[in-house]
């Protein structure tokens, strides 16, 4: 296979071990390594880049092993979390650096091309510390690509960006990995980036792969409690909680749809309208403002359901009675809980 492969790779640092990890990332595709802080994402990426020794397994590029090669011989475009820009070099000299190193006679024209591709020409003479986060990210990406890498390894490259900058960089990245025909392994803790960019999403927890799926499979396929929580589901109920809610009409419906590990409901699958109207009645328990709108906590028997309300006014007060509507097609039954005991 053309691309990056990890075979039973094991590594570690400071008593923390990662692996075994096996992955295949074909050229021209992006795989996102997703996981909470401390899951081992950065440790794994640094081992692939050659900065940590492999305890077991192999790293292959285009079917050739590179696990014993030093970082400079691997030709991996590694972008660390803080980007690693050279503070004493201007933007142009940062991008030119890998071309200078190998004495490329076309260094100037190639540098110009990468600066243009990332819209960096007006900033060519600026020093990194004068740039915004988004501009710095673009410099790091342009520099990594100027090295004509065989693999791209990027650690949280979009973490400090606003939504607009992140989306525009994601579009650029998708184009680039296709046009340059390189595999990209990108580390993030942000599911939104993962879903927008990846052809595969690998979820890491405690140094081990918890899931290796396409975004589509993650969005529609089976989940467990860890994945559901990590993907941002606010309404998570164990089987025992659902069983306790069977005495209420909506609780019984939800209990019937739950899996062995319980049930997850996305907040936008829960709608409501003010006023009591029959058995699906709930009481407003709390209101919370978030950047995406109001979150209304609704108590229905023993269950508390969180519903997201776009707009500046929640339309209800704490203690008001509302009628609930839950979209049955958006309910996600959960598989057996692994690593997290159901109460």
């Amino acid at each position, binding site marked *: 296979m053309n691309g990056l492969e990890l075979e039973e790779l094991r590594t570690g640092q400071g008593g923390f071990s990662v692996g075994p990890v096996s992955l295949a990332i074909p050229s021209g595709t992006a795989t996102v390594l997703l996981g909470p802080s401390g899951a081992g994402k950065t440790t794994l990426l640094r081992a692939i880049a050659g900065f940590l020794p492999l305890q077991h397994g192999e790293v292959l590029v285009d079917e050739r092993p590179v696990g014993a090669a030093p970082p400079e011989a691997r*030709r991996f475009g590694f972008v660390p979390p803080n980007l690693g820009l050279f*503070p004493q070099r201007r933007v142009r000299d940062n991008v030119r650096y890998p071309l200078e190193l190998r004495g490329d006679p076309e260094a100037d024209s190639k540098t110009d091309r990468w600066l243009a591709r990332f819209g960096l020409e007006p900033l060519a003479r600026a020093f990194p510390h004068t740039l915004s986060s988004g501009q710095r990210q673009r410099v790091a990406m342009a520099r990594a690509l100027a090295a004509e890498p065989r693999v791209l390894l990027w650690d949280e490259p979009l973490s400090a960006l606003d939504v607009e900058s992140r989306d525009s960089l994601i579009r650029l990245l998708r184009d680039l990995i296709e046009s340059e025909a390189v595999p990209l392994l990108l580390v993030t803790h942000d599911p939104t980036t993962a879903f927008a960019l990846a052809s595969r999403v690998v979820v890491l927890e405690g140094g081990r792969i918890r899931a290796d799926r396409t975004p589509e499979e993650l969005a529609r396929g089976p989940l467990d409690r860890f994945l559901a929580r990590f993907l941002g589901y606010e309404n998570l109920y164990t089987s025992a909680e659902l069983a306790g809610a069977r005495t209420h009409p909506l609780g019984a419906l939800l209990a019937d749809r739950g899996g062995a590990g319980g049930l997850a409901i996305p907040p936008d699958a829960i709608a409501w309208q003010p006023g009591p109207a029959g058995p699906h009645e709930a009481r407003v328990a709390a209101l919370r403002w978030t950047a995406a709108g109001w979150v209304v906590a609704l108590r229905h028997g023993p269950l508390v359901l969180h519903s997201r309300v776009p707009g500046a006014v929640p339309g209800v007060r704490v203690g008001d009675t509302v009628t609930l509507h839950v979209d049955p097609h958006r309910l996600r039954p959960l598989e057996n809980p692994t690593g997290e005991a159901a109460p």
Partner: protein
Amino acid sequence: MDRSSFAGRALSVVLSASLLGLFVLPLVALVFFAGPGGLAFGFENAGFRTALEFTLLTSAIAVGIGVVTGVPLGYLLARYRFPGKGLVQSIVSLPVVVPHLVVGIALLLLFAPTNPVGTYTASLGLPIFNGIWGVVLVMVYVGAAYVVLTSEIAFRAVDPEVLEAARSLGANPSEAFATVTLPAAARGIATGALLMWARGISEVGGFLILAASVYPSLPWAGPVTQPASVWIYGYWQINPGDAAGASAVLVLVALLIFLGVRFFDRTGLGWLRGGGIT
């Protein structure tokens, strides 16, 4: 501005001005005491000019040795853990706290022409006692610690991620050191070198014991002379006014070199580092 912040700022201005006054007023007194005659003596006296040239030569050699040996030690201390590291750091700081008269005595005891080490160095063409290499040795001993300490701090400040980025872009460890680490630490190293140089030309105690008078030997082909500070100390016993004039000239030369380094830092060093210093 409220009253308490105004009072705080006024107090800090008064305290800062007091210290600056302490730095400047003795020099003003020196110039006044020397008068036009003393200053003319300082500029024109051949003996002092020779001593000054000798001091500038020896301090340049000493700084060269200090940088060549001190920068690698600073790098080791910044980047590696090894047994006895704390002891090494204490040894590096030792010359800063030992009285320099004691430094002179200790070096004399080691390099006296009557003992094997002194005889051996003399046979290599490196006379220590009353020789140019004795002056250089004292300057290195009392000043190299500044190069080690400032370069250690400078290397420590280089972000390891920057080095990893350089490696993954194709630089081997030596290239990453030369193109990333060293340029990033250049300013700290230059500061240490300047401090070492300043410490060297202002030294007296060690010279008085080990090399109060210096006889010609390579690379000093000039007449018998003394380090400028020792020359001034000796002349102070004969003619205080002329000694004050020579002192003022020494201060002026030191000031010009400091200003020159600052100017280079703003213009030339930026180019050396592959970027500017802002």
